[in-house]
C-alpha cells in the first residue's frame, strides 16, 4: 500500500489551494452534493457561454481527495461542451473504478486521481464533484424546475 500513490503532490496542492473555489452569483445552475459517509458536502455553481461551460466554481467542506478532485475538475471542464464533459466524466469514472484499465492520456492532470482506485472506500470522495456537476448540468436542461438540484452518494 503506497500512500504516495494516493496523496500525490498534485492532490495535496489542490487540497491546500483549491482552484475556482467559491460561489458564482448570479449563476445559470447549481447543485449540492453530499457524501453522508464522510460528511463531504459541496456546491457547484456554473455559467454557460455559447453552448460551453463558461465559468464553474465549487465550495464546501471535504477530505483532501474530494477537494482536490473538485478543484481539478473545475479546471478540466471549463470551456467544454456538455457532450465533452459527459465524455470526460465517463473517462474519470472508468479510471476510478477499473483497477486494471490503463490510464487514458485524455485525462491530463486528472490522472493524478488514479491512485484512488486502490482504495474502494475513497472512490466516492473523488466522484462526488462529478455527480454534482452532472446534476447541475441536468438541472440546466430541465425547464421549469426551480429548486436547486442535489445528489447524494448514499
Amino acid at each position, binding site marked *: *500500500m503506497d*500512500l504516495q500513490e*494516493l*496523496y500525490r503532490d498534485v492532490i*495535496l496542492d489542490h487540497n491546500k489551494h483549491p482552484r475556482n473555489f467559491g460561489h458564482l452569483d448570479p449563476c445559470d445552475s447549481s447543485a449540492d452534493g453530499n457524501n*453522508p*459517509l*464522510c*460528511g*463531504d*458536502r459541496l456546491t457547484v455553481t456554473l455559467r454557460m457561454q455559447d453552448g460551453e461551460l463558461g465559468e464553474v466554481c465549487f465550495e464546501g*467542506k*471535504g*477530505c*483532501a*481527495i474530494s477537494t482536490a478532485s473538485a478543484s481539478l475538475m473545475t479546471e478540466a471542464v471549463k470551456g467544454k461542451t456538455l457532450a465533452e464533459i459527459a465524455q470526460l466524466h465517463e473517462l474519470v469514472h472508468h479510471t476510478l473504478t477499473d483497477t486494471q484499465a490503463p490510464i487514458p492520456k485524455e485525462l491530463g492532470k486528472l490522472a493524478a486521481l488514479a491512485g484512488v482506485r486502490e*482504495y474502494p*472506500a*475513497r472512490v466516492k*470522495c473523488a466522484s462526488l464533484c462529478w455527480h454534482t456537476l452532472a446534476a447541475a448540468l441536468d438541472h440546466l436542461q430541465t425547464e421549469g424546475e426551480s429548486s436547486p438540484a442535489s445528489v447524494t452518494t448514499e
Partner: protein
Amino acid sequence: MTVISETSSPVYDVSRVRADFPILAERIHGKRLAFLDTAASSQRPLSVIEAVNDYERHHHANIHRGVYQLSQRATDRFEGSRERVREFLNARSEREIIFTRGTTEAINLVANTWGQSLKPGDEILITWMEHHANIVPWQMLCERTGALLKVIPMTRRGELDMDAFEQLLSPRTRLLACTAVSNALGTVLPLPTLIAAARRHGALVLVDAAQAVAHQRLDVQTLDCDFLAFSGHKLYGPTGIGVLYAREAILRTLPPWQGGGDMILTVSFTKTTYNDLPYRFEAGTPNISGAVGLAAAIDYLLTLGIEAVAHHEHQLLEHATERLQRIEGLTIIGEAAHKTGVISFTLEDIHPHDLGTILDSEGVAVRTGHHCAMPVMEFFDVPATARASFGCYSCNEDIDQLIGALGRAREVFG
C-alpha cells in the same frame, strides 16, 4: 479461555486476553493490527466462534417446531441463551427478553408497538448525544402520531445539560429514550438521576445500552428502566442478534408488531390468536446461532469480569488521552468527566477521512466519520471526527501505534 476472577483485577493480563482473539494476529498492509474500533463492533473471542461453530455443526434445526431430537436441542440452546441474557440483565422473567436483530430493531419495536398509544401533544424526550438509531424511529413515530420530539441539550464538554433536562420534563413527557453512553463522545450518562426524574413525571424510560453493555453492569431492576436495548456484536458476540428487555406489565399491553410464524397460537382466515410472551414479538425463524454466540459472549465477558475490563479500559483511556493531548494541533472532542474508552478527535485541518486512510496504512483501525450521530458533529461544528475506542483486548502497544501513525499523517500533509 482466560480465567481472571474479579478480585484479581489489578493483575489484568491483557496479553492472555489478546490470545483469546484470533483476529488480532492478522497483518494489515504487512503491519501489526491495532484494532481501535471496538465501539463500532467488537471482535470475537475463540469461545464465541467455537460456540457458534459447535451449534452449526451439531445442533441446528428450526426451533419451537420439530418433535425430533435436533429441533429440541436447537430449542434448548436458543432458550438457554435467553435465560443467560435474563440473568445477565437481572430481569425478573425470561418473558421480558425479546431477541431482535440488534439495538436498532429493538428500538423500532418499541416505537411501533408502545408508540401506537401516543396522541398529538405527547412528548418524547431524547438527548443531543443519541445515535441515529435512537432518533429516527422516534421522529418517524412523531410524524405518524402528532407527538413531539424534545431534545435535551449538552454542554461544550459533551455532558448533558441537567438543568435543561429538568425543565423539559413535564406531564406531557411519555417517554425518555436515552443512551447510556455516547458512541461519538464516550460520555457516560447519569442514568439513575435521569430515570428517577423521568419517573417523577410519570414517563417511561428506554435505555439504549449498545455502547454501555460491554463496559458497565446493567441491572434492569436496579436501573428501574422500562425498556433496554443492546446488540450482541458490541459485546464480543455475533452481528445480527440483539436484545430488547421490556417490563412484562408493559409488554402485556402492547399490540404485536411483525406478524408471521412463531408469534401466533392459532391462525385462520377470520381470526388469529397470538402467542404468549416473549414469542409474540419474535415473528419468523430467529438468528439461533447468533443467540448461542451471544450467550457465549456473555460468559466470556463475565469470566473476565466487567469491572476488571472497565478498569483496564479506563487506564487506557487516561493514558491515550494524556498522550494525544501532547500532539500539537490535535483536538479531543468530548471531555466529559465520566467517559468510557472512546476518544473522538481531529488533527489540524486534516479531514478525518484522510486520517483514517493514513492510519490504516499503518495498521491502525479507527472509525472516521459522523459516527451515526450527525447532531453531535453539528454541535461541535465538525463534519466528522476520527474515533479510537478500546475493548478488553486493547493495549498500550495499540496506543503507541496510533501515536506513530498520527505522526505519519502529519508528514503526508506537512
